[in-house]
């Protein structure tokens, strides 16, 4: 399960210098955006990226982990609940504790919440409807490893596709998330305002994505991998992966400087 290229252009590119960041794209039974993520990382951006099966217990050698969208384990019990018990998520927990970058997209976000790596929960959308559409998001934090290439307060466009994306946290926890500035993306209108009709699923405080306290684990419901090339009608998602790459390169450069 280490290669599995989707398109010919997604095959690993040879001749890249070894310190290039290495991305893992986790594959659960029922993941369905894993190939899209690998396609963007490898085929569009030319990064080193590989699939990692859910039974894998070790993420040694990787610099970043992507938990992709889909319906892991059929969404049984609660979305992400069964995946949160898998060997690879135990490895992701250790990886995150060691400072590695982790991004969970859609079902991946649900997995991170169920695993307790991020605060809160995602419940059935308001109106109990599956929402598949483009939304506007306001970038609340442009100082994270995932958003450094966005401008603070910038309004971007990304697609969503989910039935269980309504962010919920008990009052005390929600307050803490806000006070610590953990909200990274909020659903807004085209004009950047959080009006009631600019909230596709009824998320509390219009929350679409947030980071952990340390800032190295991000979860978001929108799909940046579905808007990373012009042919898909938008490429606002691309900078999220580019931000990660840039941050990892900078970290490697600083680490190399320290050891010299």
């Amino acid at each position: 399960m280490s290669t599995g290229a989707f398109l010919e252009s997604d095959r690993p590119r040879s001749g890249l210098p070894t310190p290039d960041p290495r991305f893992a794209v986790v594959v659960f039974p029922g993941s369905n955006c894993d190939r899209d993520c690998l396609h963007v990382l490898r085929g569009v951006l030319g990064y080193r990226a590989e699939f990692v099966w859910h039974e894998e217990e070790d993420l040694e050698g990787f610099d970043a982990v992507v938990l992709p969208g889909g319906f892991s384990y059929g969404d049984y019990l609660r979305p992400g609940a069964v995946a949160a018990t898998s060997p690879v998520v135990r490895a992701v927990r250790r990886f995150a504790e060691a400072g590695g970058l982790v991004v969970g997209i859609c079902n991946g976000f649900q997995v991170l919440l169920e695993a307790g790596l991020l605060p809160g929960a995602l419940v059935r959308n308001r109106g109990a409807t599956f929402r598949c559409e483009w939304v506007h998001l306001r970038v609340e934090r442009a100082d994270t490893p995932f958003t450094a290439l966005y401008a603070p307060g910038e309004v971007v466009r990304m697609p969503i596709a989910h039935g269980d994306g309504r962010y919920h946290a008990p009052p005390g926890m929600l307050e803490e998330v806000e006070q610590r500035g953990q909200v990274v993306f909020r659903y807004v209108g085209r004009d950047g305002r959080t009006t009631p009709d600019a909230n596709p699923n009824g998320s509390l405080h219009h929350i679409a994505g947030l980071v952990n306290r340390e800032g190295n684990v991000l979860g978001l419901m929108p799909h940046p991998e579905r808007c990373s090339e012009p042919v898909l009608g938008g490429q606002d998602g691309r900078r999220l992966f580019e931000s990660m790459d840039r941050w990892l390169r900078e970290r490697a450069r600083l680490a190399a400087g320290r050891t010299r």
Partner: protein
Amino acid sequence: MNKRVRVVVFLKPGVLDAQGQAVQTGLRALGLEASEVRVGKAFELTVPEDRWRERVRELCERFLTNPLIEDYEIYEREEVAAR
């Protein structure tokens, strides 16, 4: 000895129950009178009788429910049968 139990799970009062609302809408569309409809889920399982309630509580807290959003009730099989 084993104990057969049923666990019933509902969203906490403060969490929007979108399914319950949808079901209520459906009932009303059929002209059937009902209010305060909530949708939950139920599990049946067998656990060792020794400290069974404690065991089931642990199952609920660690996996069967998400304590942030859900409450649960535990019933013994006899209670289940009596219903």
